[in-house]
């Protein structure tokens, strides 16, 4: 009985949280795509500066991580493929797993660490110092002013970062292929590209857009839900990271199942 009501309560809380996330993402999308046609112009400058922060500044660390991931993938694939004398397939294995799965996922995780946490900390601090209230009293919607630029920056930059991550991963795989599996750089890259279908790339990019929406919604919601006091900012930042990783994996699962069913 006790357990049943606890599970019931947990499910209800979970659904309420999902509802808040959807509502926040919906309002951010409204100010991004609908409101500009109703006389509430989009502040492009804010979007661009967010895009720089979310996207461009993430490139060095993302490149390094995905290069290593590509290298690790190649090593792991080679470990099995070597037994069958099928080292040629290393390129294919790395290319497909990077584009369909690991590219978008690793990118999302790097972006959660860099930007999802920063969103929660920034908005949480503004909540604690009454800056969010100040926006409201100035008749400026905090969603329009703070969330929408992040939302737009994320849904544009995450797919771009993902493409970059895929390339760096393939490059990482290639460095193994050239050193250990008698590939030349050109042949490795050509084999990788030929092994990919457009749908591999597209499914990965669709996932990355969904990840972008998820990370923004969770980060900003946790920020906006920050209670009173400075220590609450730390708590909401932590929660934003943990929740984002969890939600990204859930979204990943849903879309992977979906693509599997429709044969994507």
């Amino acid at each position, binding site marked *: 009985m006790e357990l049943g009501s606890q599970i019931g309560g947990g499910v209800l809380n979970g659904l309420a949280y999902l509802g808040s996330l959807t509502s926040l993402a919906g309002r951010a999308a409204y100010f991004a795509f609908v409101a500009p046609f109703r006389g509430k112009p989009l502040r492009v400058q804010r979007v661009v500066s967010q895009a720089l922060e979310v996207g461009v500044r993430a490139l060095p660390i993302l490149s390094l991580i995905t290069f290593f991931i590509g290298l690790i993938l190649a090593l792991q694939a080679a470990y099995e493929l070597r037994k069958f004398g099928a080292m040629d397939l290393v390129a294919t294995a790395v290319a497909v797993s990077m584009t369909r799965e690991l590219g978008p996922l690793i990118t999302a995780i790097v972006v959660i660490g860099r930007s999802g946490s920063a969103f929660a900390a920034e908005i949480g601090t503004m909540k604690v110092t009454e800056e969010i209230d100040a926006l*409201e*009293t100035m*008749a400026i919607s905090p969603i329009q002013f703070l969330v929408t630029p992040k939302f737009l920056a994320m849904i544009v930059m995450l797919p771009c970062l993902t493409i970059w991550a895929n390339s760096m991963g393939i490059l990482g795989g290639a460095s193994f292929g050239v050193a250990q599996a008698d590939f030349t750089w050109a042949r490795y890259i050509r084999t990788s590209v030929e092994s990919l279908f457009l749908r591999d790339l597209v499914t990965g990019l669709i996932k990355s857009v969904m990840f972008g929406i998820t990370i923004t919604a969770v980060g900003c919601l946790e920020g906006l839900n920050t209670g009173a006091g400075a220590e609450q900012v730390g708590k909401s930042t932590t929660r934003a990271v943990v929740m984002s990783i969890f939600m990204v994996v859930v979204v990943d699962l849903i879309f992977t199942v979906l693509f599997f069913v429709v044969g994507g």
Partner: protein
Amino acid sequence: MDAENMESVDSGPMLSLRDLRVSYGDREILHGINFDVMPGETLVILGGSGSGKSTLLRTLVGLEKPSSGEIWIKGKDIAKISHDEMDEIRKRMGMSFQGSALFGSMTVGENVALPLREHTKLEDSTIEIMLRLKLEQVGLAGFEYYMPSQLSGGMMKRAAVARAMAMDPEILFFDEPSAGLDPIIAAGIDQLILEMKKAFRMTIIVVTHELASAFLIADRMVLIDKGNVVLIGTKEEMRASKQPRVRQFLDRIAEPEVARELDYLQMLTEDRRSLGVPGGKRGT
């Protein structure tokens, strides 16, 4: 003050509260507040910590929804209007927050210019001139390129006032204007409020528990206690009041329970001099 009221076209009150009740969850914070604020008047809302005065202010600017009652501002009941209508009224209001609430990621100038950039179609050069003017009015000329973190507490307060004034509001709200400031800087902020009042004939509503400041700037005062209006009146009426709660507040007498505890402590130290010594700060 009355002569000024005669001059305004609309002689009705700028703001009226009718049986305003506000609750957080099951707990009612304000139990039916009634008062009017006339145009051009400076009303000080006095009250102790936890009296509900801050909740009252937050409700007046639309940050909290009342559970029942009416709040009439400029002929509209803001308890019932839509979000868009509220935003229109908010453009005619300015609010200076207790902790200034300047945006830390923007310069002082960008802070002050923000409402103008968001709500008007003015050219950048015009906005530049206006923001210089606003900063000059609050005594911060030349500080537009500073970040809020580079300013002292008093300067941040002034910058916040400049931002609240950006849209030339008809009503200006202050939440604890002298909180966290030393007496000299706090007196400077009081002076600034008086200057605003004289120069722009704005309706000003100030929430504070600083008696000296309250008696200096107020035309009328409201004392709120435990979510109820204890007294509303002029400074003289407030000073002359015999109501125990008003006397206790103005004469700074501790709560009886607290006083008993003090009594015990003072028996230990055999120092009874400081027990219940009146001598609250009286306004000039």
